[in-house]
């Protein structure tokens, strides 16, 4: 069984730095789970504790039904691809791949057959006699994957394995890892700080910050229903526009004011007053280029235009040197300095309270007017 259960897992380093705070999590067998978060959020430490490379301060780790806290890394039936790949530089590719079977004291003949099989799976047969130093980034990546594959672990742990590759190769390798998961149907735990990687690969994303899990969910759920300001800001490229301001209620009508910008609100709105943050994703800002402003439109000067080909990013000024980013289709022709009308899609506006938590329209906390 390749399921994983973390129970009250905690890691405190010398000097009192808490890397992982009481974490509880169940990862189902065959699932592709991505731990994502900024540097120092505890994602790699969690992975290393699962691998047995770091000892938990408290809590239990189960792989299948087995409590593995006291097991050596080699006894946990896991495979791991490291960020720097950790290929043994003094061994050929074949010896690197065959290292696991060699440690298992497998017959040389059987070992050679397994090495050939693993090499075939990741298309590196011609490289078997080379040394790691003679490989390109992508080839080295494949060797690291093959070395992990050959021991047929129940759980694959991948610690930012693509971070040293260029953008194009990264996308290719990402697709290969995805394909590998689909073929092997084993549990994959992948650590990254790249939200795009997390979105494309994961069955389930675990967002971490300050050693705590902020949100667990499938990629679209995380993107569309962030539980707090941090998750909303972390996912999406460009990230969500977050406007600090306050709710206003006048004559029963709600609006949100951020500096000079006043957004009239209709439909379900969190029933509260005072400081809050309004969030709107760039693709949920509608731009209107008509000369005559539409009724209810907001107006802004376009400070900057960034054509990306398929899309174009518009930086809209809404206060003292504050900008909103909007995405329009690439064929729109807008000049910097021009004025445009825009509106927020009502059902796509998010609100976050001063404690960063998302405010839902149903919510009726104290202080409701």
């Amino acid at each position, binding site marked *: 069984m390749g399921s994983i259960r973390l129970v009250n897992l905690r890691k405190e380093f010398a000097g009192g730095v808490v890397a992982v705070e009481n974490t509880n999590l169940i990862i189902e067998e065959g699932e592709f789970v991505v731990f994502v978060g900024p540097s120092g959020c505890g994602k790699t430490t969690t992975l290393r504790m699962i691998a047995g490379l770091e000892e938990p301060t408290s809590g239990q780790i189960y792989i299948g039904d087995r409590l593995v806290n006291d097991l050596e890394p080699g006894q946990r039936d896991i495979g791991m691809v490291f960020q*720097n790949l*950790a290929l043994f530089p003094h061994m050929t590719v074949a010896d690197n791949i065959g290292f*696991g079977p060699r440690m298992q004291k497998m017959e040389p003949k059987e070992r050679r057959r397994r090495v050939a099989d693993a090499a075939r799976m990741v298309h590196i047969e011609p490289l078997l006699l080379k040394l790691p130093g003679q490989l390109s980034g992508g080839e080295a990546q494949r060797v690291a994957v093959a070395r992990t594959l050959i021991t047929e672990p129940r759980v694959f742990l991948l610690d930012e394995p693509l971070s040293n590759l260029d953008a194009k190769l990264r996308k290719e390798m990402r697709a290969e890892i995805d394909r590998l998961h689909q073929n092997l149907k084993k549990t994959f735990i992948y650590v990254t700080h790249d939200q795009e990687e997390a979105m494309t690969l994961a069955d389930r994303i675990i967002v971490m910050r300050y050693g705590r899990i902020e949100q667990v969910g499938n990629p679209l759920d995380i993107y569309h229903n962030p539980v707090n300001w941090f998750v909303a800001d972390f996912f999406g490229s460009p990230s969500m526009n977050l406007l600090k301001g306050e709710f206003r209620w006048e004559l029963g009508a709600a609006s949100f004011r951020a500096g000079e910008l006043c957004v009239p609100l209709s439909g379900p709105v969190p029933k509260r007053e005072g400081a809050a943050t309004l969030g709107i994703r760039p693709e949920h800002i509608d731009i209107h280029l008509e000369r005559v402003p539409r009724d209810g439109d907001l107006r802004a000067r376009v400070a900057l235009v960034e054509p990306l080909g398929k899309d174009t990013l518009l930086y809209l000024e809404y206060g003292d040197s504050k900008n909103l980013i909007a995405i329009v289709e690439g064929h729109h022709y807008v000049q910097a300095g021009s004025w445009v009308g825009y509106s927020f899609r009502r059902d796509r506006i998010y609100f976050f309270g001063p404690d960063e938590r998302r405010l839902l329209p149903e919510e009726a906390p104290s202080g409701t007017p």
Partner: protein
Amino acid sequence: MTRQTRRQLSAVARHAVLSLWLIVTVFPIYWMVATAFKLPEQWLAWPPVWFPSPPTLENFAQVWVGTSVVSSGDQVLPPISLEPLHGLRNSVVIAGTATLLSVAFGLLLAYGVSRYQILSERRMFNLLMLRMMPPIVIAIPLVLWYSTLHLLDTWVGMIVVYTIFTLPYSVWMTKSFIDEVPVELEQAAQILGASKLRAFAIIVVPLIRSGVVATCLFILILTWSEYLLGLVMTAAEAQTLPVQLSKFEGTQEGRQFGLQSALSIGVTIPLIVIGLLIHKHLVRGFSFGMIRRR
């Protein structure tokens, strides 16, 4: 001045400085070799005899084959019989064993420091401080202890002293090599089923082999050419070549430069031979860390 002229002048200056440096370095070695082949009257002749003429093997014969009899200074002492082959054997055993032990212990200690921080930086520095005091400061109490323990003038006694005295260098040098090996390599090996010790033996050690060889040579040079402790703590049984060399300093016949040089060549050659045999490792060892490893 054109750019090309400037470049040429700079090349000339560079070569001039290097040539001068080469002369300063090589000349004493040449003079030692030349003196070994000179007749006694040419040793201190003025103007100097640049090339031995005729070259003689008398000095070698007297030092290495026959038993040369020298006595000490103005005092009338019984003649000391010099047995250079005995000294050579002592040097090989003492310096060789101390080098192997020092590097072996140093490697283990350095691994602990590098991977498990068993010594703080301050402690590591303290370790180096061991080498900062003059050896004679230690020599006197050591002689007292050693005489009680019956370790004076023994191989074991000298090996222990040299091992301890060179250990700081072994630790510092090998630690710098181990630091260069990413810890993930060992962790990858452990995940693939290797024990910690096995990962150290089959991953770390082969990767720092050149560094270890370079450290061995460095420690060997230190122990091979050590004089002061050898002089104080040995008499006849465990006397090493450098101590024997000093016997020619003040003989009744004056300073025996030719004999001393003939013996010096014997002291120097083993190190040169070892250096040549392992020069590939040396280049790699001393440039360790300058090459990016994946």
